[in-house]
């Protein structure tokens, strides 16, 4: 065997692989195994039932909306935190991580209280005829809340490393602020934004705790897929629960693959040739 300078490879690799196998692969395998215990026909019937489909629809559409919102707002937040110095900047910076630290159920209850028709936000909004709590809008709010840190935290370091001379070069070449933003800054942030978007979207698809308090959970309108899997579980229908969960798992894999592919494309200029 080739001699290595850095010690501990067999031990470190062994521990890591065992860890990954026990913590990550085993539960997923059990899930697939459980779902596979259904025959193909039963499996298909469960995952393509009207109620399941309605839940996919509401989950994916709300996650998309939340992600688009986070893309815009998270990018602006990262921009402000990196580019400007103002009193309280460090506090805002620390607050960004709060959704990570807060138990999601607490977030859900807090958001529900705020957005219920007698809440601080819900009251004025209901006067305008906008209902948030117990509607898909509420789901979007909860999803945005729990996934915003992903975008901010992936974009922030890249933005910090961005050489100000690039923007100055654009200015000396006569480019408008808009051309510099769309032609220089955005393409350079694209890989980080993609990573952030995919994490934010995946998290929104899988979010449970924060949503169930605010969503109202009406089948066919505000019932998310994760909740449907949970309901099946409560009914001791483990295979059906696993079948629905396997759809979410598959979606997550596809998401990861697509994002990796897009990131590789966005980063192709870094390839040396």
């Amino acid at each position: 065997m080739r001699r290595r300078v850095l010690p501990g490879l067999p031990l470190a690799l062994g521990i890591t692989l065992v860890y990954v196998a026990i913590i990550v692969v085993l539960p997923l395998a059990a899930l697939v195994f459980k779902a596979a215990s259904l025959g193909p026909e039963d499996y298909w019937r469960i995952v393509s039932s009207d109620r399941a489909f309605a839940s996919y629809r509401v989950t994916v559409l709300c996650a998309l909306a939340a992600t688009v919102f986070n893309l815009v707002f998270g990018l602006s937040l990262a921009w402000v935190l990196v580019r400007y110095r103002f009193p309280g900047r460090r506090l805002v910076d620390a607050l960004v991580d709060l959704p990570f630290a807060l138990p999601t159920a607490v977030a859900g209850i807090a958001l529900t209280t705020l957005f219920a028709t007698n809440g601080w936000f819900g009251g004025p909004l209901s006067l305008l005829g906008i209902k948030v709590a117990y509607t898909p809008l509420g789901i979007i709010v909860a999803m945005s809340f729990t996934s915003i840190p992903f975008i901010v935290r992936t974009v922030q370091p890249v933005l910090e490393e961005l050489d100000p001379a690039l923007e100055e070069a654009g200015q000396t070449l006569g480019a408008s602020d808009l051309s510099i933003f769309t032609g220089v800054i955005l393409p350079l942030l694209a890989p980080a934004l993609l990573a952030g978007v995919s994490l934010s979207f995946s998290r929104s698809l899988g979010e449970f705790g924060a949503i169930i308090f605010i969503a109202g959970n009406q089948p066919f309108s505000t019932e998310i897929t994760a909740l449907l899997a949970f309901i099946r579980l409560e009914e001791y229908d483990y295979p059906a629960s696993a079948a629905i969960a396997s759809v979410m798992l598959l979606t997550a894999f596809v998401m990861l693959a697509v994002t990796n592919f897009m990131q590789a494309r966005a980063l192709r200029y870094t390839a040396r040739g």
Partner: protein
Amino acid sequence: MKIRLTNVVKEFQTFRAVHGVSLDIESGELVALLGPSGSGKTTILRMVAGLEYADGGAIYFGEENATDIPVRERGVGFVFQHYALFPHMTVGENIAFGMKVSKVKRSPEAIAKRVAELLDLVQLGGLKDRFPGQISGGQRQRVALARALAVDPRVLLLDEPFGALDANVRRDLRRWLRKIHDELGITTLFVTHDQEEALDLADRVVILNKGKIVQEGTPETVCRNPADAFVMNFLGDANRLDADIRGGKAYVDGVAFEAGGVADGGGQILFRPADVTWHEEGQGIAAKIVRVIDRPDSRRVLALTGSGQPVEFDTAPEFPYGKGEEGFLDIRRPRAYPAA
């Protein structure tokens, strides 16, 4: 395009970076702003570009007051020390960027033609489709120059353009930049802290210290008649000996040197290591050799004068003396200045 700076001032939060600098740059001239770090040279360049606003004074491009013209309308080509090429664009796209975003609409064919011309000018014909990460530092800097020239700037500004490159690449690029300048005749202002680069490249050198111009003139003027001890020291190795100035003479260890125009009192004389001859006996300042350093083309001798002041000088490789030997320093072309 003639550039004129009148009493330009720039202050950063706590300190004054540029104190009232006035400077005239003739159309088609190649001028170097030379100074140590913190001398304000880059700040001056950035004010000319419009990347910083002047806090006082005015900058004229020809007869036009350009002080408040925003950078994107000022019509300057700027080359950054670390190239600042757009990493996600190919070499060709980098050069085309300025033409694409310009208010003057050009057809894609016209842009492609101009890009090809510029690539020829900077001798990078085959690299159009490479990304900046795939070419060498010297090539990147040439792309940066092509990109700056693509928008037909009125003035070309370069900020330490060769600072990040290897010594031999720098020398080649320097000669090449001079050639491009002579071909295009564009008014060019560049910043450097490397006196060799400034003297090699520029028609005129402006030497800055602590935000003020200390001397400006042709390379010959600043080399032969340094205005003060700072310029003398900054332009190259210099020895410094404390001296007493009395009646137009500077006395060091009892030896008199010419010091016309320097007031009586404490003073100093400065001289280059090449302007010293060692004599075993005779006239000059008594000294003792401390160490001899060998170099490919000479020997550098470190000596101490009778009064304990260090002197370094260069001799032929055949210099036969060594550590501990005593003799006399015969100094040519000494320059006397008041004590610092």
